[in-house]
C-alpha cells in the first residue's frame, strides 16, 4: 500500500528518484510556497541548534513522496493547503475544535491544524484527495456520502469522510451509536449528522 522508495528513503540520504520528485514538487508548488510563511525565516535556522528541525523534508501524502520546505512551527494543515495545493482539507477553526481539517496519519484520524508537519515525516498521510481512484472512481465512503446526500454546505464533509474511513478500518461494521461516537470530533453546523450516519452505515454495508 505504501509507496515507499525501493532505493530506501531515510533521513539524510536523498535518493536520485526523490531528488527528481522533489524538483517536480517544488516546481508545482512554486507559486504558493512562501505565501503564508516568512520567506527566508526557515533558512535562518542553523541545523544542529536546539529546536532546529530539518527544513526540506519528505512527506508521504496520498501514496506519493512530496518534498516540501517547512518551518518548524508549521502545521500539517498549512503544508497541505498552501504548499502541496491540497485544499480539500478545510480549516474551520485552526485550533482543534471543529474537525474540518481531519486527515489520516498512519490510518488514524487527526486534526491536521494541530499536528506539526515535521513530526509526520515518517508517517503515511492520507487526505480527501487521496481516496478516489486514479480514474476518478469514488471511494465507497465518498460514494455513500453522495448517495445519502450527506453533505449540506460541504465544508466539514472532507473531515467527516476521513473520520469515517478511519472508523471502518478498525470497525468495519459499526453500530449507528458507535459511528456517532467515532465522528463526534467532527462538527457540522448544517446539522447533517443523521445523513452522515446514514452514509457511514451504507459504506459499512458495501465495504
Amino acid at each position, binding site marked *: 500500500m505504501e509507496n515507499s522508495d525501493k532505493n530506501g528513503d531515510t533521513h539524510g540520504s536523498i535518493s536520485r528518484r526523490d531528488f527528481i520528485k522533489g524538483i517536480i514538487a517544488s516546481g508545482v508548488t512554486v507559486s504558493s510556497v512562501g505565501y503564508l510563511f516568512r520567506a527566508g525565516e526557515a533558512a535562518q535556522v542553523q541545523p544542529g541548534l536546539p529546536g532546529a528541525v530539518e527544513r526540506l523534508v519528505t512527506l508521504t501524502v496520498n501514496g506519493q513522496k512530496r518534498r516540501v520546505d517547512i518551518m518548524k512551527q508549521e502545521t500539517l494543515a498549512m503544508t497541505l493547503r498552501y504548499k502541496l495545493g491540497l485544499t480539500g482539507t478545510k480549516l474551520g477553526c485552526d485550533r482543534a475544535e471543529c474537525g474540518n481539517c481531519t486527515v489520516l496519519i498512519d490510518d488514524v484520524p487527526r486534526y491536521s491544524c494541530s499536528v506539526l508537519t515535521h513530526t509526520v515525516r515518517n508517517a503515511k498521510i492520507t487526505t480527501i484527495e487521496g481516496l478516489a481512484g486514479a480514474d476518478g472512481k469514488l471511494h465507497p465512503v*465518498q460514494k455513500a456520502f*453522495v448517495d445519502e446526500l450527506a453533505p449540506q454546505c460541504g465544508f466539514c464533509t472532507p473531515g467527516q469522510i476521513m473520520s469515517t474511513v478511519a472508523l471502518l478500518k478498525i470497525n468495519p461494521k459499526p453500530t449507528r451509536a458507535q459511528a456517532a461516537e467515532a465522528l463526534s470530533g467532527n462538527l457540522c453546523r448544517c446539522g447533517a449528522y443523521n445523513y452522515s450516519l446514514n452514509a457511514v452505515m451504507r459504506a459499512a454495508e458495501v465495504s
Partner: protein
Amino acid sequence: MASYKLIGKDFTPPDLVGKVTGKAKFAEDFRPAGMLFVKLLRSPMPHAKMRKIDTRNALALKGVVAVLTADDLPKTHPPEEPMLTNEPLYAGEPILAVAAVDETTAAEAVERIKIDLQPLPFVIDPLETLRPGGPDPRSDGNVANRELKLQTIKWTARDFAGVNQGKLPMGKPAEEWQYGDIEAGFKQADLILEETFVTQALSHHSMEPRTAMAYWQNGKLYLHGSSQSVSFAVPGIAKLLGIDPAQLVFISENTGGGFGSKGTGYPQWGIPAILAKKTGRPVMMRVTRDEEYAFGRARPGYQGWVKIGFRKDGRVTALDLYIIQSNGPYEGFPDFRNSGTAVSLVYQPMAMRWRGISVLTNTPPRGPQRGPGPNQIVVAIEPFIDKAARKLGVDRVAIRRLNAPNNNGKVGPKQGPITSSYLPEALDKGAARFNWAKKQALSGQRKGSKAIGIGVGIAIHGAGRTGFDGLVLIKPDGKLYIHSGAGNLGTFSYAATSRTAAEVLGMPWDRCEIVAGDTGKNVPWNSPQVGSNTSFTLTRTNYVAAVDARKKLQEIAAKALNGSPDDFDVGNGRVFLKSDSSKGLSFAEAAERAIKLGGKYSGQELPKDLNPITARAATGLAGQGLVGVAKDTLPIKGAPFAFCATFVQVEVDLETGHVEIKECLGVVDCGTVIHPKSLATQIMGGGVQGIGFALAEKHVFDSKFGLAATKGLYTAKPPTYLDVPLDMQWDAVNKPDPHNPIGAKGIGEPPLGAMAAAVLCAVSDALGGIYFNRTPVTCDMILNAAEKKPQSFKPLEVNV
C-alpha cells in the same frame, strides 16, 4: 403531482461529487500569483475612541505592503456598520488592516502597530442604557434598526420600579401596532397568563469563516466571498466599494454555511477588495474563528413580556407582546418586528398589540439567523401555551390546532391574507405518526434518575418572494442551461428550483446544466438565499423563463414547419407538431435557428422590465442560442408562509440535568415537496440547530469588561453527533400552495424553532410543569429547578 417527471423526485445535485472529493472550491481555496495576505488589528475594548495610531514600525517591516485604516475609507452613515473604525463599538471590532507578502509578516506588523485608545462607557445589557442617566453604547444614540433611525431613548425611573422583582420595564417603545380590541379580548378570557422571558443572543458558527479574496483586472473587481447569495449580493458590494455593479465579478460557488449570517453581505469583505486596489495585487483575508465570533454576526437576544388571554377551550382571545432586542452597535436586523408578525399568524389572536424597541449594545453586530424573529419568539411563547393547556385541562396539540391558521389565516397588524397554511394538517399528521395521544401516559414517568417528557412545538416563517428574474439558454449542443443567481450554502435549492425549468420544457435532467455561483457566468437577478424563500421564489423565476423559452421554441417551429405556434408542443429535447410528433425540430436545431433569427430569440432584444443584472447576463449570452428570460410577474394574493410542527420525547436526568432527546418527528407544510431528500436535511438540520438553541448555545459576556466568554466552538456549544437523536424523523403535508406554479414554498427556518420549542416543552413536561421563561435551558437550571433552588441569575439578566 403524479404528472411531474422531476418535481418531487430525488436527484444528485451537481456539486455533490466536488464536496466529497475535496474539489469543491471555497473562498480560501483560490490562489492567484503574487497574492498578499491580510491581518486585522481589532479592538481589545467594547467601546473606545482612537486617539492615535502609529504604524511606522509596521511599515518598516520587510514584506509589509500596505496598511489600511478607517481614515482611508469613505465615511459611513450611522448606524451603518463600517469596514474599519476609529470608534470601536464592540470588543474584537476591526480597526485597521495590514497587507503583507505572507501571513506571518502581516501578523507581526499588526503587533508592531501602536494604538492609543480612550476607553468609553459601554452597554452589554440593553436595560442599562434605557435607564435614566445610563451609559450609551455609542456617542450618537442607543436605539436603531433597519428603518428605525438612530436615536436616544431613555426611560424613567418609574419604568424601572419593578425591575429588581423581575418585572420587565416597559417604557416608551420605538415601534408599536395593534389590531382588534385587546382590552375586550382580555375581558372575554377565562385564563390570562402574564409572563416575562429572556431569549439568548447566539452566534451562527458557520463552519467556513467569512474569508474573502479579491483582485482587480481591466478595471473590474473579482471578489471571491463566502455568501449565501450570488446575484443579490452584487448591488450591496458595489455600493460598499463605490463602484458600478457592472464592474464587479462576484464568485461564491460554495459557501460553508451561513444560516443568515452571510445572507445579504457584510462590510468586511470590502477590506481585501480595497487593499487589492491599493496594492495592485490579489489580496486574501483569511478570517479566523475568533474573528468570526466577533464580526460573524449573531442572533439578537430578547428581554420580553407577554400577556395572553385564553378562552376555556384554549382559543387565544387577546395577546399583548413587548420585546426589547439587544441589537449590537449597528443597524442589526428587525427580529423584534418579525416576531410580532409571527405571533399574529401562528396563534391567530382575536386581538393583539405588539410593542418593541431595538436597543444598541456593545456586543458583536447582530444579523439574521435562521428564522430571525419568528423562531426565538415561538420558542419563548410555546411553553406558555403548554402552561395554559395544563391550567385549562386542554390537550397541547389541540390548543395549538385550535389557534393555528388555516388557508384563511391572517397575518400582521393589517390582518392581511396568506397564500396557504396546512399547519393544522401538519399537527394532525405528526400527532398520528408520533402516537401523541398514547404517549401522554409517559409524561413525567420516572426511569431511575430520569424523567420522561413529551412535547410539541410549532414554528413559522415567511416562505417566498416575487419579482425576480429567470434566465435559461438552449444551445446548439441541444442542452438546456439553467442560469441561477442563487447562492449555494448547502440547501441544494439552487438545483432543486432549477429543475422547474426542465420540467416545463420536458427536458431530461441529464441534458441540463446549471450555471451558478459566479456573476461572470451571466446569472440573473435572483432572491437572496435567505428566509425560506428560494423554493417559492426561484421556482417562479425558472418557470417564467422556461415558459418564455417554450413560447419561442413553438414560434421557431411554426416558422420552420409552417403552422401556428399553438400547434406545437415540447418534450424530450424536441419541439414537435402535436398532431404528428414525428414532425418537429430538435432543441439543437431550434437553437441554431434562434441564433440566425436573432432579436428576442437569441437575447439581442430583451424585455424592458428585467433587472439590469439580468439584462447584462442575458446580453452576455446573446447569440449563443435560444434565450428564455422573463421577470416573475405571476399573480399572487397574500403572503407565502411555511410551517413546521415538531414532536419530541425526552429523558431529563434529575441528577445531572442532562436532557436526552429520545425521539423526534418534524412535519412541515412547505407546499409541494420538490426534492424530498433535501427537504429532510432541512428539517433535520434545522432541528439540530433547534436542539442547540433550546439546551446549550448562548453568548456569555463578562459584564465588567464587556468581553465575550463564548468565542470558541467548545464554549459556544453548537450540537455534536452526541447531542442529537440517532434517528430523526420527518414528514410533509405535501399540499400545493395555490400561488406558486408548482405549488412550492420554502422551509429552511421553521424546523429550528419548532424543534427548540418542542424540546423545551418536553423538558417542562418531564418536570411536571416547571417553566423557565428563558432560553437556553441548561443542565444547571434543570438541577436548580428539580431541587427547588433559586437560579444563579436574576430573571431579566442577559449574557449569563
